[in-house]
């Protein structure tokens, strides 16, 4: 019998990376090119609002685990979802086409190590699933700043089997050289590749003698916890006032607001809004959905620290009610 690698077990690829590093964009392109073959995709969102499922449509199956991070609070939900996938696969005839691959896209706040440990420690999953690779996506624009201040960013890099640098086309070559040297220092074993909007490109030529960024010891640092907040904008959102408010927020609190994402209704259609720290991606117009679709339109997730969630909505309301 022709057994795939992993003695008939399903292979699991964990896709990790910090908030807004480009995990979904990268995964979307891999699925589009069918790099994983027949694949079941699990997406974890730290917030209760799934946004990423709107982007991933090329898999055999897609399940969103929202309402907690699977490396800590929602770990049992992940184990249950993986067991379901194993059951469904075992119920099919092994001579036919079966799903041999699972991709887990973690939330930007997840440390991949406890996830991998939880799967290896589960008495059932260990016979059905082999963790084949941990791919960590690294944002070439923001990673140096994150590595300086975020212990989690460092843990993610250290856990990776493979690192994929994104946004290299817009990154400064000097900084890119420092980042690559820093990544090699943190995780010398992981090969580093580059991608732009998910398509692989050659790693740009950088100074081979670039020094790694000195990383301060964060062991005793007192950092406020990062938390997701949901802003319910509704269907009749005043997009212009919202844009004024968000631009002011990112200007003033760009170091605290780590990630903003959501779908907003505007006169031009449904806009997918995404921001990482102070950088707002050019909004993408999404196709209209049927009556049952678009259920999360008008909800914006703001992930960050150092403020009260209630203050966000009060302040936004003040801006949208402004009448000159």
């Amino acid at each position, binding site marked *: 019998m022709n057994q795939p690698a992993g003695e008939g077990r399903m292979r699991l690829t964990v896709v990790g990376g910090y908030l807004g590093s480009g995990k979904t964009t990268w995964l979307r392109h891999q699925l589009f090119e069918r790099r994983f073959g027949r694949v079941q995709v699990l997406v974890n969102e730290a917030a209760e609002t799934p946004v990423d499922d709107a982007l991933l449509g090329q898999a055999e199956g897609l399940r969103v685990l929202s309402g907690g991070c699977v490396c800590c609070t929602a770990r049992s939900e992940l184990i249950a979802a993986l067991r379901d996938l194993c059951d469904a696969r075992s119920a099919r005839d092994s001579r036919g086409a079966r799903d041999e691959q699972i991709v887990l896209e973690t939330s930007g706040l997840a440390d991949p190590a406890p996830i991998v440990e939880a799967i290896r420690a589960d008495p059932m999953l260990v016979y059905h699933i082999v963790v084949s690779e941990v791919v960590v996506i690294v944002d070439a624009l923001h990673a140096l700043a994150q590595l300086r201040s975020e212990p989690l960013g460092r843990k993610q890099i250290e856990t990776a089997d493979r690192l994929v640098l994104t946004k290299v086309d817009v990154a400064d070559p000097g900084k890119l050289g420092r980042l690559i040297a820093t990544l090699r220092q943190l995780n010398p074993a992981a090969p580093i590749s580059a991608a732009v909007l998910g398509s692989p490109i050659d790693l740009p030529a950088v100074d081979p003698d670039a020094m790694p960024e000195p990383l301060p010891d964060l062991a005793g640092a007192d950092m406020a916890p990062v938390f997701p907040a949901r802003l319910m904008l509704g269907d009749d959102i005043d997009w212009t006032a919202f*844009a004024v408010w968000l631009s002011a927020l990112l200007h003033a609190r760009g170091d605290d607001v780590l990630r903003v994402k959501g779908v*907003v209704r*505007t006169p031009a259609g449904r806009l997918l809004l995404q921001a990482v720290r102070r950088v707002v991606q050019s909004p993408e117009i999404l196709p209209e959905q049927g009556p049952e679709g678009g259920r999360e339109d008008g909800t914006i997730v703001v992930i960050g620290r150092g403020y009260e969630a209630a203050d966000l909505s009060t302040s936004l309301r003040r801006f949208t009610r402004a009448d000159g």
Partner: protein
Amino acid sequence: MCSICGFPASPGHWTEAGGNTAPDRLRARFRRGQVLKSVLRSYGITAHDGGVIPGIQLATFSGAQVIVPDLEAVWPEAERLAGVVIDPLDPRFTRPESEGV
């Protein structure tokens, strides 16, 4: 781009993504001016976008004036004119509305 003043230098800012048609875009500019005017008033700054001259005009009550290309440029300029940090999570925007701005 205007061939005389070279403005705007770059294609639309993300905050201008919501309008596809010229009337939508003009309406959005008026609304943007209105919101900015209301928000910046408490900092002693007036904002104006009449839809004719490109850019957003900021002025202080003492007469200093500046024109900025988009919303992203408004905040650092307004902070410079006002001499204080402008933060939408400042108590003036987050306390109950009955207490006023």
